[in-house]
């Protein structure tokens, strides 16, 4: 048992928790809640500990060989700066969402099944992040996707089923494109290990395979991450799910399945050229504007938030697509910040739904007096997403805009500013119609939500306020290591293969 044994635990713990809850959850009361609480807390603690171990590891990389097989033949798991960054983001949100679900899911029947699916989704995302094998990535992607299709339909009401059907069909088409891309890469490179594939691709020249595969992956992962031409499923699927799952879907699922895989494949395997980066920047910019314009006219609280997810993913993709160290830093920092404040906003919407039974902004109003904690955390999150200075959203958006200016892309910088202003307008509407103003008569008797729902909201709000501190030099290693992995590009191959050979 040495240090690298921690790596497979990120898959083992949620998988064991998923099947244990479905096994004992029916017989022993409250056992499923206990198992999920312990497992998600353990995952969060382990992800922080992995970050600590990574600091002392040689070359800031740890490679685990499953079954003792050497990398080009067996599957290996790679923990580097980028995976560690994503692991902490996913497990942080998953822990708070699990705590929130303990009370929130009382409205639904069959909690053990919910927690099984939730754990499987976390297992899929963690596995996708740490795997070093391309087909393994596809399998984990499908585990997370199938669990999320089922979770969207969890309420089994008419709208939820319709949204889930749409999501499942679009997601399957996306998976088909990704699978065909992997098949082409395999036939070209005769290997599935990501590091080995990067090595083969950089030595073997071909004029049409790589651009073709790039387009397939862009379609597949673009659909998974809901970039604008492929975004049609997101505004239906995310509001239909239970609020805690909406927080997971918008907060981390689209980023893990879409953005992380896109980064890993485009930067570390295929090798990003200026052409890809220009496409990514363009898609990011239109997502940014289109998402927020569509959000302005929404009256359903959760649907409005879902459109903002499209817009904020646009910022992340724009930042990463710039390809400069500052742009990538801004993109990744915004990815983390967006996970925090978007899940907080969805948890707020769940709290409003839990207390009043409606999410229509025309019907609510004046909830600020009766639900003070929800209103205050929502104010923090709204300020954050709109980019008001002391909160974390300001810093990441500012970095992205500065990076745009630095690279000379003034048009994209102006787009980012406009998007930010429209976001502010949209969230002023939320504040006005949900929490300020006069209270309606029928909501006179509502109470604040229970403690297990308040605790995650308060914690996430605190992270929103102090998130900007991550940019000061002594904490920056968290982001800088992730940026370093992306900037290394295809030399990822030699780093991983050397670490594995030890």
């Amino acid at each position, binding site marked *: 048992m040495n240090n690298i*044994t921690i790596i497979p635990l990120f898959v083992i713990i949620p998988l*064991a928790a998923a*099947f*244990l809850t*479905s096994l004992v959850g*029916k017989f022993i009361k409250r056992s499923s809640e206990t198992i999920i609480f312990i497992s998600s807390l353990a995952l969060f603690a382990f992800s922080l500990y992995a970050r600590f171990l990574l600091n002392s590891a040689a070359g800031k990389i740890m490679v685990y060989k499953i*079954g*003792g097989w050497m990398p080009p033949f067996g599957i290996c798991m790679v923990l580097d700066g980028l995976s560690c960054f994503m692991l902490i983001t996913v497990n942080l949100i998953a822990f708070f969402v699990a705590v929130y679900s303990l009370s929130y899911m009382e409205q639904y029947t069959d909690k053990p099944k919910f927690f099984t699916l939730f754990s499987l989704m976390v297992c899929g995302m963690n596995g996708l992040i740490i795997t070093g094998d391309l087909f393994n990535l596809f399998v984990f992607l499908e585990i997370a996707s199938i669990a999320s299709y089922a979770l969207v339909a969890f309420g089994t009401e008419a709208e939820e089923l319709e949204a889930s059907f749409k999501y499942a069909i679009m997601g399957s088409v996306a998976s088909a494109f990704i699978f065909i891309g992997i098949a082409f890469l395999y036939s070209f490179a005769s290997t599935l290990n990501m590091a080995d594939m990067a090595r083969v691709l950089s030595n073997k020249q071909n004029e049409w395979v790589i651009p073709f595969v790039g387009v397939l992956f862009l379609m597949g992962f673009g659909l998974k991450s809901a970039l604008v031409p492929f975004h049609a499923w997101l505004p239906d699927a995310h509001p239909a799910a239970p609020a805690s799952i909406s927080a997971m879907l918008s907060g981390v699922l689209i980023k893990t399945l879409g953005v992380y895989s896109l980064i890993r494949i485009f930067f570390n395997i295929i090798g990003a050229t200026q052409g890809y980066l220009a496409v990514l920047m363009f898609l990011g910019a239109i997502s940014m504007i289109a998402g927020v314009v569509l959000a302005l006219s929404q009256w359903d609280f959760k649907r409005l938030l879902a459109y903002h997810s499209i817009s904020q993913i646009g910022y992340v993709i724009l930042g990463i697509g710039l390809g400069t160290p500052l742009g990538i830093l801004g993109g990744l920092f915004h990815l983390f910040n967006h996970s925090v404040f978007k899940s907080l906003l969805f948890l707020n919407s769940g709290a409003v739904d839990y207390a009043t039974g409606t999410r229509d902004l025309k019907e609510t109003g004046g909830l600020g007096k009766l639900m003070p904690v929800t209103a205050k955390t929502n104010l923090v999150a709204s300020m954050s997403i709109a980019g008001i200075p002391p909160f974390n959203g300001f810093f990441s958006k500012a970095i992205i805009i500065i990076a745009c200016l630095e690279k000379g892309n003034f048009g994209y910088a102006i787009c980012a500013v406009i998007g930010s202003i429209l976001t502010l307008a949209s969230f002023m509407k939320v504040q006005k119609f949900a929490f300020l103003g006069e209270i309606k008569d029928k909501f006179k008797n509502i109470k604040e939500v229970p403690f297990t729902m308040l605790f995650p909201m308060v914690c996430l709000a605190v992270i929103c306020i102090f998130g900007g501190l991550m940019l000061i030099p002594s904490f920056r290693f968290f982001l800088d290591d992730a940026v370093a992995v992306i900037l290394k590009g295809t030399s990822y191959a030699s780093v991983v293969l050397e670490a594995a050979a030890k």
Partner: protein
Amino acid sequence: MRNNPETGMTLIVKTITRLTVGLILLFGIYIILHGHLSPGGGFAGGVIVALSFVHLMLAFGKDVAVARISKNMASNLESIGAMMFLLVALLGFLGGSFFLNILAKGNPFNLFSAGTIILSNISIGIKVGVGLFAIFLALVVLEKSK
């Protein structure tokens, strides 16, 4: 397998089913156990096992099949199969690595060879067999409720 003419298909189908269902089940188990020697394995064998129950259900009606394996039992067995597979994988930690094949490999082409692969095949067989049956059962139940 009582012969109730009210439910299920005709007498011919029922008689043939009664003769073949055991053989199908046995064939599924054979495929699972010889997964490391010949084509097939946990998934293929599990599907055949599930098909024997589905066969029973189609010929004799839902109740006869459910009397063999109820829906609750199917979902429990499925979880147990998954846990068994995870345990086999965790067994590798005794030798130092996740999924490491720590048991003695034996001689090639013998039934008891290839270490933990046969254990994995059995657990996958259980999971797939009851899992597929549970899916079929769930779809039938859904159809009845409308």
